[in-house]
């Protein structure tokens, strides 16, 4: 707890660092880097403020956010579920392991045509893509977490005749939480990334489409404004996750 407070106060330096980088950006854009693709921060802020005021950006972000959350919830939820089962039961693991490892390296852009065929070009497809991407980090971390659960913990549950299902829920799950949480955080950022990418494939909604259009319209100010806002959104979402993590994992992180 004290350590957490210390980190929080040190975070100030993190923001100082970011501010310094932004100043460097401003200076570089005004002096030696001259490209339409590298506008000064001040121009980005102005463009961003206008887009925000016009209600354009809030609408764009809102529509992305729900797609992202839907896909993330599905993918991460399934990741934990399948991960716990695969980590715990040999047979489930044997049945799915090969399949998972064959599917994991397939890049989404490569399977866009069949996805369109099966899921259309609208929300369903995008949500699926987000879920697909969120699934694997959670799965891999969950399996690793479940496998690292101490045998004594499991035996305690057995000797008190706790049912296997309840053991999963009350012992295996909390014990693997350090792994699961970190998988969830990895996937959260990934979900955001993939939402944007999926929106670039087709459709006229969301951050991805906005970034794409602004780039092709040579309005790099708006484009970077959206990127910075995206970063901010990711930061805030991660902060929420950290809040959850502090409650769930207080017992784990006392080493720090």
């Amino acid at each position: 707890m004290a350590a957490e407070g210390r980190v929080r106060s040190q975070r100030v330096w993190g923001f100082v660092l970011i501010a310094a980088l932004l100043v460097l950006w401003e200076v570089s854009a005004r002096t030696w880097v001259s490209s339409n693709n590298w506008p000064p921060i001040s121009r980005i802020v102005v463009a961003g403020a206008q887009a925000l005021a016009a209600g354009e950006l809030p609408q764009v972000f809102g529509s992305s956010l729900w797609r992202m959350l839907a896909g993330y919830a599905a993918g991460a939820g399934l990741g934990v579920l399948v991960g716990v089962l695969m980590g715990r039961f040999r047979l489930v693991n044997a049945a799915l392991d090969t399949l998972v490892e064959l599917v994991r390296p397939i890049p989404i852009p490569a399977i866009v045509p069949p996805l369109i065929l099966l899921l259309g070009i609208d929300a369903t497809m995008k949500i699926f893509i987000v879920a697909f991407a969120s699934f694997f980090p959670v799965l891999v971390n969950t399996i690793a977490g479940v496998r690292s659960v101490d045998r004594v913990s499991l035996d305690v549950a057995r000797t008190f005749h706790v049912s296997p299902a309840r053991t999963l829920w009350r012992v295996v799950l909390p014990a693997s939480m350090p792994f699961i949480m970190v998988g969830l955080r990895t996937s959260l950022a990934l979900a955001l990334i993939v939402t944007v990418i999926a929106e670039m494939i087709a459709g006229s909604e969301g951050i991805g489409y906005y970034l794409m259009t602004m780039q092709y319209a040579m309005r790099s100010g708006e484009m970077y404004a959206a990127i910075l806002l995206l970063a901010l959104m990711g930061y805030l979402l991660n902060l929420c996750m950290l809040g959850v993590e502090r409650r769930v994992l207080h017992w784990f992180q006392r080493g720090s």
Partner: protein
Amino acid sequence: QQTTKLRVSTIPIIDTAPLQIARAKGFFAQEGLEVDTTPTAGGAAGLPALAAGQVQIAFSNIISIVLGAKQNLGFQIVAAGSGTGGEPPDLAGLIAKKDAKLKTGKDFEGKRVAVNTRNNIIWLYAREWVRATGGDPDKVTYLEVPFPQMIDAVRGDRVDAAFVVEPFLSAGLSADNMTLVGWPYNTVRKYIPVGQYATTKGYLEQNPVVIEKFVRAYNKGVDWANANKGSEEWSKIISEYTKLPPEKIKTLNLPPFEKTVDPAGVDAVVDLMRKNNMLEGAFDSKALLYRTATQPPR
């Protein structure tokens, strides 16, 4: 009268102006069509979506349509989109640094040229331009660079020249130390087809009337575009879907929009594709053009 819903995959670039105009001016509604345009990035997902039946019509470049038709996806061109006129300017040009002193294809040997994707139309015409101006296209390196990054790439000497489209072309030319080297489209052949609207044989057989209505309304958009190019309303409509600032739209130099596709032009493209190993075996380019593409419906 009952309205028919039609989903059209487009690309939010200047080339699709007539379609957007026809929509904005209500030409489709007059024909009893409700057209819903779905933008896809660079058109990559457009033809797959068409083949999958998720859209009924897709705007795409001629090369992709030919390649798809070759793989028995049943594509049919129903209307003209964009192309080059009888003389420059085109929608795309080859630019380089002034001090690079690049003039002809011969100068390009051993040099690097930026194209948006290899094995596609920009690449094809870049090669053919090199050939047409006395160079060997195989001695040139073609690097894939997204259009928005091409100017940076030239300026940063990552490439020696770029075959770039509007609005980046105008932006590039307005920068200092940049010059136009050539108009590959026009140099290779006048009146060549670039972008077209395609549908599938399956849809055509079931809905010939819908397609006629679509093309008729679209052609009204073409007429309007050619007549009102540069007007306030024109800028407004274009700006609406491309997000380009209106003042920039006014400065763009555009060829006229066409209502028909020249079958000879398609043949020529197919020949070029063969010449550059993009196509093997027999291909009947006549069968690719539905009648609405050569004879505008009354």
